[in-house]
């Protein structure tokens, strides 16, 4: 699925983009450091995924790229030209190139207007001189492009007559109406039913291949990112911590957070035959992302990182290119020890023994079943779990 896209021209670029929000509270004005120094390049005909948990700044980046939020620092370049403080005609030119795909197709279409109105309005705004027939033709072509065929059957419908998947196709068609070079998709499939998500993803890859549209695909689902994206970028607490070709990021993650994300993603191949307890046995408390008002000094992941060193709490890690095109911001790559990121099992967060001990202490009821699997808090038992974990790699841990 992936192709060499990096030799294509860069369409949209973010350089060192930063966004700080001011919040007023009892303690005075505080600053939320939502996005910090993000670099991003979108090439023609390329899908780039931005993966991260909620609050990691993914949406803020998309909103800056769509000029919804002004940047605090850094710059955005469209076709190599800096875009700053646009309004009026210049803004319209920008929107003709960069379009947003919204998350919720039930909220982003005006329910009082027909599909014809919704799509032709987008066409008319950006090509005001087009005649009535030309607009109609264009709308039919758009419906065709998003595979709502026969188009004549859909053009007079209203949003409520369409299913979620069909509505999302209308949202995509509306974005395509201006023939943009970039689409910014903020979780475009997360509101859709699982059975139709793949079709929308396939449509997006089709548009990439046929129309050469560049797509920024924002998601929290790393498996879907792998499915459609040529490159994956990983965001954590407002910073971009890793980026590279999709397969490379999935199979050889170079940042501990990426590894945590991969280990946490559901994966039935991991052990459908084993006792479900054993799949979660090594899972203690994996922790939560930090406050963005006072983020940790140094690397923002350091409080949760099992490999954290002294330097991680003081210095921000620099971007290190590990293999061509695959980079990460982690001190392991400068100090040494990065190979640990690929070991079969990594203990993240609060170890399971502590969680277990805390649970035993807190348990307000009698244990009602004999623990057939043995006492997990027992040190000897834990040893075996660690030893056995060597063999867990066959269930699909990252392989070097």
């Amino acid at each position, binding site marked *: 699925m992936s192709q060499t896209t990096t030799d294509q021209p860069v369409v949209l670029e973010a350089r060192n983009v930063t966004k700080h929000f001011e919040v007023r509270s009892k303690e005075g004005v505080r600053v939320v450091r939502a996005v910090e120094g993000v670099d991003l390049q979108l090439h023609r005909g390329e899908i780039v995924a931005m993966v991260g*948990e909620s609050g990691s700044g993914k949406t803020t980046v998309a909103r800056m790229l769509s000029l919804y939020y002004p940047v605090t620092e850094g710059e955005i370049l469209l076709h190599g030209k800096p875009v700053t403080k646009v309004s009026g005609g210049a803004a319209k030119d920008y929107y003709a190139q960069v379009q947003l795909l919204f998350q919720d197709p039930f909220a982003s279409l005006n329910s009082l207007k027909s599909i014809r109105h919704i799509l032709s309005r987008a066409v008319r705004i950006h090509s005001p001189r087009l005649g009535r027939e030309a607009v109609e033709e264009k709308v039919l072509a758009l419906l065709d492009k998003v595979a709502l065929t026969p188009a004549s059957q859909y053009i007079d419908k209203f949003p409520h007559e369409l299913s979620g998947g069909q509505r999302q196709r209308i949202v995509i068609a509306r974005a395509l109406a201006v023939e943009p070079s970039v689409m910014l998709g903020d979780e475009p499939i997360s509101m859709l039913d699982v059975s139709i998500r793949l079709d929308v993803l396939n449509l997006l890859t089709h548009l990439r291949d046929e129309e050469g549209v560049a797509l920024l695909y924002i998601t929290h689902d790393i498996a879907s990112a792998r499915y459609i994206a040529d490159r994956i970028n990983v965001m954590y607490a407002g910073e971009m911590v890793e980026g590279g070709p999709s397969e490379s990021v999935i199979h050889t993650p170079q940042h501990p957070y990426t590894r945590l994300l991969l280990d946490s993603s559901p994966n039935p191949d991991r052990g459908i035959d084993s006792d*479900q307890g054993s799949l979660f046995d090594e899972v203690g408390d*994996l922790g939560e992302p930090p406050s963005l008002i006072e983020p940790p000094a140094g690397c923002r992941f350091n409080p949760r990182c099992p490999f954290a060193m002294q330097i991680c709490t003081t210095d921000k890690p620099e971007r290190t290119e590990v293999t061509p095109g695959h980079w990460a911001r982690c001190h392991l790559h400068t100090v040494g020890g990065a190979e640990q990121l690929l070991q079969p099992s990594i203990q993240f967060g609060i170890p399971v023994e502590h969680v277990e001990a805390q649970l035993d202490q807190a348990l307000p009821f009698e244990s009602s*079943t004999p623990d057939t699997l043995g006492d997990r808090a027992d040190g000897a038992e834990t040893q075996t779990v660690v030893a056995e974990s060597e063999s867990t790699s066959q269930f699909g841990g990252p392989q070097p």
Partner: protein
Amino acid sequence: MSRRELGEVLLEVNDLSVDYLTLKGAVRAVDGATFTLRRGEILGVAGESGSGKSTLTTAILRLQRPPAVTAAGQVLYHDQDGTVTDLVPRTDAQLRSIRWDKLAIVMQSAMDALNPVKRLGDQFRDVLQLHQPKMSNREAIERAQDLLAMSGIPRDRVNSYPHEMSGGMRQRALISLALACDPELVIMDEPTTAVDVVMQRTIMGQVLRLQRKLGFAIIFVTHDLSLLLELSDRLAIMYAGKIVEIGPAAQLYRDPKHPYTQALRDSFPPLYAPLVKMSGIPGTAPDLMNLPDGCSFAPRCPVAMTACASVRPALIEVGPVDAACLRNQPEYADAPVADRVDAEALEMEGVLR
């Protein structure tokens, strides 16, 4: 075939049907659901939105609100002392001794399920004192602290308001709250949909640990089949209000006996396995007001035959699983796939051309 040894029967659901009464007539949202749940078992319920999974779980606890009504069927609760109670004809007052003490539920949205203007400890105290009226305030708060600590929430959080906690912490508090009276069954309706995958894994690890210690059974409802496959002993797949397949998780994953189960399984891109071009399920879920005469899945089914349009398949035993598909009956096994002139299907062809 099951992952673990399971206990006695805890809950027996027989032919349970739930209708939504509308001006246009009754809409059957759950149609003849039948299954048994054993003590300590984790039953996963998967299906798309509108398939009736949440309606089913609320109907089991009799928590459905008008216009939903239980139209038919039984929910038999087997008490530890051997008595069997049908929950369907019970009044709310009669159910009070069973709800929360025996059967508890974790609601879908942690944000809405907790009272925003009450401290966490007081919300626990409400529940504890209602079910154990002799419990003093101090005891109740201490118990609340234990319950919170049990899910990995610091004890001092008992004085916090819900808005002072992260989404993940609120969700864990809600699980603790469901466990407040040491129930025998906990129904979890999409408990981790609002949190991200890392928190989801923390929560599920903790739930399994608690389940192993306390021995409660779980009915886990979600649309995330990958998670259910990791978690469940048995899985029920729902489509258009019916259970179309139910059986051991590994069996449904490896050798599904219903085309919908297979299609749903293949709708999740793999995390590590080699990538191939995949396709979703063509078409959309049927309108429950207007179901096809035969199999509800027939219009979207890749192996549908002529009979599927008229014969309604029953849930029958197929090896280790139960499935509702005519293809499993010998007389239909080799029938040719019917030609479909289905606009929806053709439309999807367009995408995949």
